[in-house]
């Protein structure tokens, strides 16, 4: 494995993260157009996503759809510029999307999952120079950029990871190394007095590592509180005021607010900024027994978003007695960080705060009256509570690995997929030297995360652990 690929396709967010109106994701390299082709769709009159023909240098409207799940990520404008008359002199694609961190990140991830590699710092400029686009005076600047990366960038990357994550990666690598060493010895020393290798052992050892990487990826995908946003799920039974809360936070109307229970049939995601912290809000469908298929899907998504959220805001309608639906939701809240909004304080109260506290003992309870057009009582208090919780470190992801870096996530995913391949072909009984290829790829991907090269790890281990000789 080497890091010196100069002509693969790279991708990066080319606008600053933040609250800008739009964000741009840029790709450069031979596969740019193909990758865009995989993600770019326009909905026809029946609401079905259709492929869009991508014309040269024409800004085209459409949506970015996750090709695996079919999920609509964002509506965008995209343009494809063929080589050589581009900034990098390679094929370039730009995708302009809504500037929210969530959609930028999702679109970038999709580009990476579909064949692009995350660009190194300054890599677009480097390619521009190598392609002859920049004049000589700019060469120095490019070198400085690369230097800056080695001097500080890399160190800070290590700094960020110091402690638990890098230890975890090292442990995982050691486990992979054990397997590799056994395979190497078996291949290179067939006549030695060495225990035979069993495929079942290889499979179980690799599966163990793979599961752990999978966990890291899952944690990593939500491990981004301060940098990339806090995941908040808004839950509550139908018509309790979830959409009103969402709108109050967004101060715009996107979720449909009606009096008919179950109007919010799908989860709605929005990004807002609370006290400087980017927050991804998921407004969920109400959780209740239903025969309506669409709503059933919505409900199961709600339960998923509860499980993956960093913080849960639960709304309770104090003008009604607690119903079984409320109890169902409460049962999902065990061990979770919860803020309860005791809503509809302006109506006749059937429930008081103390009752709620007994039911959900560790939560913070805020009394609110959310209604369309009226003053949003309690919103401010809730926003402060959220900020305090984040700043005070009360909210953390489970395990708190903080794999926040997209590059690292990308490498973890590559490693995961290589291990998956290794396990699959081990099950088929393919010969060791084929399995070894995938395993050593998985090993080097992990090594790139912590900046360690492969070097002679394997042979060093072979000679220190096995007694070999003539």
């Amino acid at each position, binding site marked *: 494995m080497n890091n010196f690929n100069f002509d693969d396709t790279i991708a990066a967010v080319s606008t600053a993260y933040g609250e800008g109106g739009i964000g741009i994701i840029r790709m450069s390299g031979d596969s740019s157009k193909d990758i865009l082709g995989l993600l770019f769709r326009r909905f026809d009159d029946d609401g079905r996503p259709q492929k869009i023909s991508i014309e040269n240098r024409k800004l085209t409207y459409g949506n970015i759809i996750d090709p695996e799940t079919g999920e609509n990520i964002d509506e965008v404008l995209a343009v494809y510029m063929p080589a050589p008359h581009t900034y990098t002199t390679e094929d370039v694609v730009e995708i302009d999307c809504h500037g929210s961190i969530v959609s930028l990140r999702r679109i970038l991830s999709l580009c990476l999952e579909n064949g692009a590699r995350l660009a190194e710092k300054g890599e677009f400029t480097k390619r521009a*120079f190598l392609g002859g686009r920049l004049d000589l005076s700019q*060469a120095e600047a490019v070198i400085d950029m690369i230097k800056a*990366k080695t001097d500080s960038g890399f160190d800070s990357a290590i700094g960020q990871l110091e402690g638990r994550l890098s230890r975890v990666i090292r442990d995982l690598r050691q486990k992979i190394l054990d397997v590799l060493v056994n395979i190497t010895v078996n291949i290179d*020393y067939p006549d030695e007095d060495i225990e035979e290798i069993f495929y079942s052992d290889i499979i179980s050892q690799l599966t163990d590592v793979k599961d752990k990487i999978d966990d890291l990826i899952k944690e990593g995908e939500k491990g981004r509180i301060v940098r990339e946003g806090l995941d908040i799920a808004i839950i509550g039974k139908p018509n309790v005021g979830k959409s009103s809360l969402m709108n109050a936070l967004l101060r715009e109307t996107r979720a449909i607010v009606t009096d008919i229970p179950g109007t919010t049939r799908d989860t709605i995601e929005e990004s807002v900024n609370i006290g400087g912290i980017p927050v991804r809000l998921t407004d969920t469908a109400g959780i209740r027994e239903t025969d309506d298929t669409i709503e059933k899907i919505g409900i199961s998504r709600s339960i998923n978003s509860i499980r993956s959220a960093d913080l849960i805001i639960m709304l309770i309608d104090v003008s009604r007695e607690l119903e079984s639906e409320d109890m169902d939701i409460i049962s999902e809240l065990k061990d979770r960080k919860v803020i309860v909004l005791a809503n509809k304080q302006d109506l006749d109260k059937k429930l008081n705060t103390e009752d709620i506290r007994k039911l959900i003992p560790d939560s913070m309870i805020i009394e609110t009256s959310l209604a369309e057009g009226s003053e949003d009582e309690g919103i401010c208090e809730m926003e402060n509570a959220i900020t305090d919780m984040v700043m005070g470190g009360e909210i953390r992801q489970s395990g708190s690995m903080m794999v926040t870096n997209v590059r690292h996530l990308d490498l973890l995913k590559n490693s995961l997929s290589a291990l998956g391949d290794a396990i699959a072909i081990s099950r088929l*009984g*393919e010969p060791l030297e*084929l399995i070894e290829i995938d395993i050593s790829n998985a090993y080097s991907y992990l090594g790139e995360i912590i900046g360690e090269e492969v070097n002679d790890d394997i*042979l060093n281990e072979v000679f220190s652990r096995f007694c*070999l000789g*003539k």
Partner: protein
Amino acid sequence: MNYEMGKYDIIVVGAGHAGCEAALASARMGKQTLLLAINLESLAMMPCNPSIGGTGKGHLVHEIDALGGEMGINIDKSFIQSRMLNTAKGPAVHSLRAQADKTRYHIEMKKTIEKQKNLDLKQGEVVELIVEEAEIKGVCLRTGGIFRANAVILATGTFLGGKIFIGNSAYESGPSGLAASTILAQNLRDLGMPMRRFKTGTPARALASSIDFSKMKEQPGDEEISPFSFMNDELDRDQIKCYLTYTNERTHTIIRNNFSRSALFGGQIEGVGPRYCPSIEDKINRFKDRDRHQLFVEPEGLETEEMYLQGMSTSLPEDVQYEFYRTIPGLENLEISRPGYAIEYDCIDPQELTAALEYRRISGLFCAGQFNGSSGYEEAAAQGLMAGINAVLKLRGEDPFILGRDEAYIGVLIDDLVFKGTNEPYRIMTSRAEYRLLLRQDNADERLTEKSYKLGLATKERYDKYIRKKAVIEQEIERLRNTKVKEEIINPVLDKIGSSPVNKSVSLMELMKRPEITYDSLAPADPERPKLMRRIAAQVEVRIKYEGYIGKQLERVEKFKRMENKKIPQDIVYADIDGLRLEARQKLDKLKPQSLGQAGRISGVSPADINVLLIYLERYRRIDKGE
């Protein structure tokens, strides 16, 4: 007093496995060549194990052969047992190994060399290199005789500064009691060559008549013999047996009790030994929990009683050697004919060499074999061959012949030595190759023969044979693709192999893609198949079964090559490149890589340094063009 003895194009110093290949390649490529050895009885001598090949090494021999070298042909003439190792694994790591009749091996090689046109073989100890203005001009013998030449290849093996250790005794000596080359060792130091000390060792030789083989496990050869050389289609020979036995706690106790009398632990040895072939005292010291170590008893030849005790290399005193060997089942009455010993010798830091194996500071001086810090007959022969070829090319004024890591184990070996360097005697292993699936024994000819033919080394006969073989393989693959078998015929065959049945007729090629199915296993359902040689069948099988993986590796090779093709001008001044880290600057300056790919493999050169270099090269190119 010195006197002139004559002039050659190329002189090879040392007639071991490296020297023989170097001299033959040079002479076969048309250069007047002189091969000098301290003692002609040591030509192609095997001072350690009586075998050629094994994992990785077998690959090297196939490659040497494909390039028109001699080792494969010579072992085919002289082997007394042949085994294909790793057959339970995939074909990429199948490795051929043969037990040699050592004397036969020596005699056959000597005959070949004596008969070779353009090649003179002479006994003589080189004591001095004649160097003028950083160019090699010839060599001077101990007798005072001077031979002039335009290129010299050093292949001194363990003779150079050789020192043998047995127990507390240590004395100047080459391998197996032959004279060491000590004056030359000093001369090379005087020339400023950065020399190092490496160490290796060998077990005792014992008489077969004193061994009770009934207490050991027999190790027979393969029933079907695979030749090393592409030029040999089939070989049939009576094979000898080897024997396996084990040490025990008593053996270990004796060795442990005598650590104080071991040269290894006594501190007398300064040389660095290889980790992959430790002496028995080292094994017992390092692997304390092992209650036994294996030991193979192998004949040294057909005309001798001497047996090699593989796995039991030692430098303990002779009395201790007797004592511990005799604790081993079957060796209770062992008579030792030659004691085991450790030998220390001079070698160069291979990072001082170019990828053509030329010493950077003396033009025309090439180096090969153990002198370059490698270990093993096969590693030596491979370098000898390449040094020979490159010396000729230099005299012809042509570009050097350098094999890539994607082309040959020879490429991996030399690239590792000259760019990564080594801190111990270097042994090839299949795990050192990144593109193992592509570098197989069965396709060595396909990878290398045409190249060598173009250089004028591989013969027309070999080249034509290779072209024919290629056609046979293509034809057979086509046939398998187009031959369909009906389910009622194939299902019983599949059932026997434990492979799931099919419900319609299917091509043989499709079936071969199943991991559990081999080419051979389909024979009952394929009466039309031509009789193919094992290596051809192997190649057909590999090409079909691993098509996908080979494709993946080829993609990676493409990427790899792009870096190899980015050439670095040799007049580049690294000191001027701002942005390179100091360590990288020093290493690059010392090793002067030819390409960015090579630069990237140098330890201490980071990806960021490569990026800086890349930018710099582009700037350099534009300034050059006057942009």
